[in-house]
């Protein structure tokens, strides 16, 4: 397991509130900056690390300068499982969304985009045979992931301009 240094990087209060999930698992949690900017539910992929003798999870994003954040109990994180278990559990939806991503503008997709799309499909209870609805969900998942990464790279602006004009940012 990775061991991280904590001398400057982590507040003890937040470390006390931090919790651990198996490495690689996706976690859904509350984030008021997401709410302010109408991004919807926050889903992140986590890594299990050790900081100052405590096992905790850190959320990381695919983008330069994006924050690496502790997963804390007060944001009500819910374990969604790892990519393989999510695909296995929702195999029919995975296959349908896999085609939906390919038929939308995306030739390929990131695992997190698929997880967000599966989670959204379950939330609205879409039929895996409803191709056009799944295509919309796939496109929406890509947008939501992009917006999440933008927030993780621009916290001050995301608060200052909330709600951010996503169209003006090309998202």
């Amino acid at each position, binding site marked *: 397991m990775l061991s991280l240094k904590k001398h400057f990087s982590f507040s003890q209060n937040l470390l006390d509130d931090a919790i651990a999930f198996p*490495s690689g698992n996706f976690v859904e949690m509350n984030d008021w900056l997401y709410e*302010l900017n109408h991004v919807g539910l926050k889903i992140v992929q986590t890594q299990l690390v050790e900081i100052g003798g405590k096992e905790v999870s850190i959320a990381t994003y695919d983008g330069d300068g994006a924050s690496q*954040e502790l997963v804390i109990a007060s944001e009500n994180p819910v374990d969604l499982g790892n990519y*393989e278990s999510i695909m296995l559990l929702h195999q029919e939806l995975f296959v349908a969304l*896999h085609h939906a991503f390919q038929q939308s503008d995306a030739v390929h997709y990131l695992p997190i985009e698929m997880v967000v799309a599966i989670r959204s499909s379950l939330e609205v209870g879409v039929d895996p045979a409803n191709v056009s609805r799944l295509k919309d969900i796939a496109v929406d998942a890509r947008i939501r992931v992009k917006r999440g990464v933008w927030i993780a*790279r*621009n916290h001050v602006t995301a608060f200052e301009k909330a709600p951010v004009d996503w169209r003006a940012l090309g998202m």
Partner: protein
Amino acid sequence: MENKLVIRELREIASVPNGLDEKILLQIQENLAVEVMRLYKHDFIVLMRRQKQEQTPTLEAERERNEFFSGRLQAEYRNRTLGGNGFSLPFYVEVAENFYKLEIGRHLQTIRDYLAQGRMSMEVNHEISAYKLRSVDADMRDMAHRVADSLNAMNQSLDRLSRVNTKSAVVVADKLRKEMGDTVQKFSDDGFSQVLLAEALTLAEAKRRLADLEKEPIDFAVPVH
């Protein structure tokens, strides 16, 4: 709109040539920003509520919020740099080490996830061969390239970690390089992963060499005999 440095000390250090990586300076800021947001969440919400009640004009509201957040971010940065004065090299080194360790872990996880996805596609389409599946599925066709990119990104992170100028960073980088090799080997526990990883490793090497060649200046000098 790209992210920019708002912490004064970090902005100043980024404005002069010194070999420090601006990416790490931004990382210090955004990691700190998340903590500030969480530590002062109540104060942020009170400010938002007041602005809503008073119907503060947009520009004025944005200015207030920026001052509020930047002020707390600046104060938190100073608290953590112990002396509270100027730029902290130990803080920079710690964030750089943590950042690259997590980046390596993230890229390894990405490879693991792509392999799982490939295996799942094979399982779902068990009636057709892997070769045929690749010819009809753009995502499968592209997968070796994406795994190769993750392998290269991981190597790049290891190189950068070695360059963080401390003995411990070099030791950590060497240890991680070994662990990374062992972990990638462990991924090849089935026929599909073995073939995909072998192809990705060859592709990764080719991409690295191509990138190196592109970096090398072309020598137009005429040889003198």
